[in-house]
């Protein structure tokens, strides 16, 4: 299944689930940020050499590293 890490720059996807492997504090933070079931995320750009991803979630832009982005399950719109 596709993760947020697999999205291309400019692509909007919908979050499905967060991997169970994530730390409790991290997954609740991600949910509060808006990475929650059924909500949209816009991938703004990918960094070179597997650098951090830049995503727009609700009213904020965040950068996320691979370690966490690859644990966020998404599906294309």
């Amino acid at each position, binding site marked *: 299944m596709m993760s947020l890490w697999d999205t291309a720059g400019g692509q909007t996807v919908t979050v499905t689930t967060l991997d169970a492997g994530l730390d409790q504090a991290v997954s609740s933070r991600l949910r509060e940020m808006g990475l929650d079931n059924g909500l949209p995320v816009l991938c703004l750009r990918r960094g070179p050499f597997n650098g951090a991803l830049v995503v727009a979630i609700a*009213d904020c832009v965040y950068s996320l590293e691979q*370690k966490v982005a690859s644990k966020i399950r998404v599906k294309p719109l």
Partner: protein
Amino acid sequence: MKRIILVGKPNSGKSLLFNQLTGLRQKVANFPGVTVELKSGRFDQYQLVDFPGAYSMSTLTRDEDIAVEKINQALLDQDTSLIICNLDATRLQSSLMFGMQMQALAHQYGKALVFALNMIDEVTRFGHQIDVAGLSRDLGAPVFALSAKTLDGIAEFKTAVIQLAAEADSSNLNTVALPPLDYSVQVKQSRLLATQYGMPSSVVLKKQNAIDAFMLNNVSGGIAFLLVMFLLFQSIFTFATPLMDAVENAIGVSASFITDLTGPGMLADFLNDALFGGLGSFLVFVPQIMVLTLIIGVLEDSGYLARAALICHRPLSYFGLSGRSFIPYLSAHACAIPAILAARTIESPRKRLITMLTVPLMSCSARLPVYALLVAVLIPDTRYLGGIVNLQGVAFFGLYLFGIVTALLVSLLLSRSAVTDNEKSDMPFILELPSYRFPHWKPLIHRVLSSAKQFIYRAGPVIFAVSLGIWLLGYFPTSAGGLEDSYLGVIGQWIEPIFEPLGLDWRYGVAILMSFLAREVFVGALGTLFGIDGADENIAGLAANIQADGLTFGAGMGILLFYVVALQCVATVATLKAETGSARLVGALVFGYGMLAYLLAMLCAQFL
């Protein structure tokens, strides 16, 4: 005293609001995680406390831990009258996510709470309007729209806060505890309210995304980053040079004016050698400190720092650091102490520790005088490409770079060693990128001026005392300028063996040892020593005097590298001890950097 606390999401304008309410000048900058400890001031008859920002009551970083821990204490404290929860009106959803958690807690503990809907000037600029009355009704708490920048709504807010706090004090609200609200209801509710009252995010993010398309682009972004860094270090040298010349001339003119008045004799000798030679040679560097502060300030307030942290995240990970380490590293070029505290925003305890331990290798402003003096002595003032590139400027850049590269290598070493093994509690790198803003000029100018003032106040008295001590010991009993035969000369012979392998005589030894009081003392001490030694009463240019005295290139480079690496600052050591909680670790660090510094200086003296 009764207390009012000021809390909210990071980078939402809490500290600027705090400054407006208290008249103080806490640090304000445009990236999340500026305030990392509690700061208090007086507002009306209350103590107002500015908190570090937090995204949520469940925390990921040390600065958030501190905020939430202290919020919980404040909730239990009888003296807490009112909670001001600051919201960024342009980012209502993320602000309310924290805000509503705060509100629920306040409710549960029976504390009064008011929302400050800050940055309303930006909302207006976007042509949007927020239905404040509706928002207040739906939240069930008072809401005041205001701008801490343009001061719109501040007067009304002040009156309201005083009134609300007084009401809370006199009512028994503070004793009624209510059951907690359901967490998932809160999360949904804050999203709903944000959609209903907030601005469309596409409008808020449009400009920032357009700028990022350039600043974070793989090619242009990389070039921009390198350019910004190069300009930062180059300009400390180039922009400040004319100002420094002006200060030097002013000191020269006043020195000759005053010594003309006193006539020759011991007083003139003292004024020339200790006062103008010692203290004066240090004042010359004030403009450099100001230029450095200005540039760092512009970078911090523009919003670029978070981008730089993002760009650096991947490369820094390789050395066992986080992208967030970039921010302490950069600010350490002004001073290591706030930088060590700034490391609290780093998500992983291990990376935070490594960052703190390597921050002292960044060339802080106290090293500037030493660098500038010795670069002027050792490197010719050659210009290339029609004056754009100056060899001395490049040497300067090289010294900064040497510190950075050493820090990276030490980080690599530490991250591969057991000292910092703490893998389990590692949190991932998640960083909000704020909107770009034009730096707010008033606080910036104030910051530049206060950096100069602090530089003088901190090191000035020490330098004066050392200069005086050195002068007394060096002037007597001979007084005729025979430094070798003075009391100091005799003491100097004892310490000379330590410095001999570095190719340095005892005068440099005295200056280096004295600079453990404050690094800048090096310049003041040498200024005094060469002043006593100088046959003529000419204090023009300490650099020229050292050159004439024949400091070798290798020995001079040795001193420079010694100053890059050695951890000589007592205040930094104390801060490190407090933040790491381990005196042994810090002791080992001071010893390690000391040995490395000495070794490098020796290698330079022998082989260059």
